[in-house]
């Protein structure tokens, strides 16, 4: 990011009033960034903002309620913050949003598939169009377009939709809503049995680690999650595909009209199950029926938390 200097300056100015500012910094190897909690001036120098900063830091906000928190957000992350505000899970006066225009982040899975052994990364350089990775003595030049996260290729909100401070210039985009749902449409037209079989096979891999849930900024029940609750007992602790699949449907349904498609659930999944597809399908239908997108307007009410006496797009059954 060209304007990292500006951003650091904004954080430095605001820090005395805040308990913490959440950003990113270098991770355990040069290829990974990690969340970074800035409490002192010297922490600011370690701040990193580039295409490796994939984490949606909004996940931390609900648990920090009551503290004065600053948060650095990409466009998609900012929607999570807005959604949390909409649902009154965080308080506007306690959150300071540092936004910027994002050009996209990498998909570590795509990199892993090309580079192979990511256990021994020696260096990584990111520029606008290229990621140069050297691993186990070999240098790989990866085109950014090949390793970009899918969500970024069709991003409609690259700039923070709500911010108190904005660093750098806004990024322009031409993507439309429809562009983002081509994958859903392609999958939808497959025969019923094929789709059913697909999920049985995919879900069978799930190890019930719940990384998908823990990474999701809108999954706020935490210790009261139905996945572990025994009253009501929605899911058994068995490793049966029916429980694993059911959990993903629960996640999609509890996120209906709330999911901002940050993609963190799918990114966090250690066995690469394409669970974002469920959430995208739900969003596509929400848009169609209620003409609504989550996390855009802090004053809006998510559509499943309200109703209209005469619905515009829901027609009654004829029988």
């Amino acid at each position, binding site marked *: 990011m060209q304007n990292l200097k500006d951003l650091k300056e904004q954080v430095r100015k605001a820090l005395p009033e805040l308990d913490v500012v959440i950003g990113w910094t270098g991770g355990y190897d040069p290829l990974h960034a990690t969340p970074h909690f800035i409490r002192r001036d010297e922490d600011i120098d370690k701040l990193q903002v580039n295409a490796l900063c994939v984490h949606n830091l909004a996940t931390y906000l609900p648990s920090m309620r009551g503290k004065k928190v600053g948060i650095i957000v990409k466009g998609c992350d900012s929607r999570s913050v807005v959604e949390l505000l909409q649902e009154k899970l965080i308080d506007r006066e306690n959150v300071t949003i540092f936004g910027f225009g994002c050009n996209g982040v990498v998909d570590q899975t795509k990199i892993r598939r090309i580079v192979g052994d990511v256990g021994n990364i020696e260096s990584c350089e990111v520029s606008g169009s290229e990621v140069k990775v050297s691993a186990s003595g070999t240098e790989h030049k990866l085109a950014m377009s090949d390793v970009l996260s899918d969500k970024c290729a069709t991003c409609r909100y690259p700039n923070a939709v709500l911010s108190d401070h904005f660093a750098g210039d806004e990024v322009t985009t031409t993507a439309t809503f429809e562009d983002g749902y081509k994958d859903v449409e392609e999958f*939808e037209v497959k025969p*019923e049995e094929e789709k059913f079989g697909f999920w*049985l096979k995919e879900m069978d891999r799930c190890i019930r680690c719940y990384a998908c849930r823990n990474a999701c900024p809108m999954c706020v029940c935490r210790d009261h999650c139905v996945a572990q609750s025994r009253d009501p007992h929605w899911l058994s602790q068995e490793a049966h595909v029916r429980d694993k699949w*059911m959990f993903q449907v629960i996640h999609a*349904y509890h996120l209906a009209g709330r999911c901002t498609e940050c993609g963190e659930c799918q990114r966090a999944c250690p066995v690469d199950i394409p669970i974002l597809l469920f959430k995208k399908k739900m969003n596509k239908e*929400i848009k169609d029926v209620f003409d609504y997108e989550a996390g855009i307007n802090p004053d809006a009410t998510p559509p499943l938390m309200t*109703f209209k006496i005469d619905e515009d797009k829901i027609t*009654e059954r004829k*029988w």
Partner: protein
Amino acid sequence: MPILEGKELRIVGFLCNWCSYGGADTAGVGRFKQPTDLRVIKVPCSGRIDPLFIVKTLMAGADGVLVSGCHPRDCHYSEGNYYARRRLEMLKRFLPIMGIDPKRFDYTWVSASEGQRWQEVVTKFTEQIHELGAAPKIAGAEAEETLKLMEAAL
């Protein structure tokens, strides 16, 4: 071979206490002829129906699920069915991505006096499920296991 094979499918109906359960009762009292595939679960209000009840029912091996509540504006709790309508509509649209035919699920409104209408709804829905046939099953689903035990006992 199980005695009911080919004749009955497993259909679960979630009916609200105030209108549709009453409607089904009216149909019974009026001795209207009805298919016998539907198993009724009475709930206090259609607003109490979590769409996930329906998913769980289908995943456990049901061939069809029918939800029926009070007509809009007639809810005993004023607005339960308005919330239900939004949630259920989204479910109907979500099922295809799972590979479940959305025709296996439907929701409708039947009032306590509409015995005739109830007869029509349940007959049409059952016909619809019979046209689709048995639903794809997840091996080891609860209902399958229960059914195997029951068949063994027959």
